[in-house]
C-alpha cells in the first residue's frame, strides 16, 4: 500500500520512545502489504469499519484510514494505550 502521514507516527515516538519499535514494524508491514491483505494480516488486533481500522498494538492504538480501491492508507490518530480513557 501507499502509506502516508508518517510524520504523525514519527512525532509520536519522539515523545513515547517505547512505541518506536512496534510503530516502525507496523509501518514496514503496512507498506509491504496490498490493501486486500490487510484484514487477514491484522485480524486479531484490528477493528475494521467502512473507513479503515483501529489497530491496538502493545503500547499504542492507531487509527488508519484506508481506501482499498486506490491502495492507500493514511495514519489518522495515534494514542498511547496507557493514556487512553474509556
Amino acid at each position, binding site marked *: 500500500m501507499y502509506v502516508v502521514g508518517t510524520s504523525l*507516527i514519527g512525532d509520536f515516538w519522539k515523545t513515547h520512545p517505547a512505541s518506536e519499535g512496534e510503530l516502525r514494524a507496523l509501518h*514496514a*508491514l503496512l507498506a*509491504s502489504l496490498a490493501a486486500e491483505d490487510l484484514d487477514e494480516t491484522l485480524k486479531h488486533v484490528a477493528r475494521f469499519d467502512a473507513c479503515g481500522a483501529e489497530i491496538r*498494538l502493545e503500547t499504542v492504538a492507531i487509527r488508519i484510514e484506508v481506501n482499498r480501491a486506490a491502495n*492507500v492508507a*493514511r495514519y489518522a490518530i495515534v494514542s498511547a494505550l496507557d493514556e487512553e480513557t474509556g
Partner: protein
Amino acid sequence: MKPIRTPRDHQDLLDEIAGLMGAQPGSPEADRLEVLAVLASEYEKRSLPAESDPVDLLNVVMRGRGLSQAELSEVLGSRARASEILSRRRNLSAEMIERLSRAWSIPRRLLAGPFQVTRRRIGGTTLSILAAGLVVVASAAATPFLVYGRNLPDVAPLVQDRAATDLTRLPPHVVQAFIAGEDRTFLTHAGYDAGAIARAVGRNSANGWGHPKGASTLTQQLLKNTLLAGEPRSLRRKIRELLLSREIEDRLDKDRILGLYLSHVYFGGGTYGIAAASKRYFHRAPAELTVGQAAYLAALVDAPDLRRFDRPDNRPRSVAARGEVLARMTRAGFVTPATAEAAGRERLW
C-alpha cells in the same frame, strides 16, 4: 498538482489526501488520490523508510495474526530457536528468513535487516583462557589493553554492505571448505576462538610480538579485509580485530558474516571475492565449483602469492595446501574420505 519541495507543500498534499480518502472506486477522485499518495509516500520514504527491526516485526505479525511462539517454533523447526530469536539471543539465519517468508508471507527484505542481539554469555573456562591470553598480550606489549579500543572504526558500513555473497546459491561444499580450512569453530564462536588465541599467544610469546600470527577467525579476517584494511599486521590490529569482531557477531548472523567474507577476501593476482576468483582460476561461477576446486580456493586465501597455481613454481604448494583443506573437511565430517580422495585427484590447471 506540483512537486513537494517544502514541509508546507507536504502538509497541503496530506490535507488534500485526507479529503479524498472516501473516494469511490473508479471515480476521478480515486485516481487523483492514488497519484497524490504515490507522491506523498515517495517524499516520506526519505524521512521514514519502511524498515524495521526483524524481531519487532515478527512480534507485530504474530500479534496481528494471533500466532503463538509454538507456531513460530513449528516454522523454525525448533522451540529453542524460536525462543532465542524472540529474546534476541540469536540472529535470523538465511534459512530461517526463507522459512518465515514462505510460511507467513513476510517479505524477505523486512526480515533480513540487522538487529541487536543480546550479548552471549561467555563460559568460565573460555573467559579464563581469553583473559589469560589478553593479559599476556598486554603485558608483552607493555601497553594497556584498553588503549587499543579507542577510535575503533564504525561498523555501520559493513553491517549495511549489500555485497554479501548469497550462500544459498553455493553448493554446501564451498561453505564447508572455507569453514574447515580457515575457522572450524566459526558456527559456534562469538567472533574469536579463545582456544586458538591461547595457542597463538604461546607461539607469539616464543617468537616475539613484532608480527603476531594466527588465531584469526573468519570474522576477524573479514574485518582485516574491510574496516581495518591497510592497517599493518601488529598487536594493535589483532586486538582491534578482537574488539570489533564481537560487535559484528552481535549485529550480523553467521550466514551474512560468511557471505561478506567471501565477497571481500583476497585470492591473489588482484582478485577479490569468490565470484572473481572462481572465474579467474576455474572459468566458472561459484555455484559450479567442485569439491577439489572449493578446497583449493579455501587454501589459497591463507597465502595467495605462494599458492597461486598460475605461477608454475607454486604448483607443488598449491596441491599440498588443497590436500590439507580436504583432510580438514574429512575430519570435520563434511566429506567422506572417498570424496576427499577423488577431489584431491582433480586437475587444478
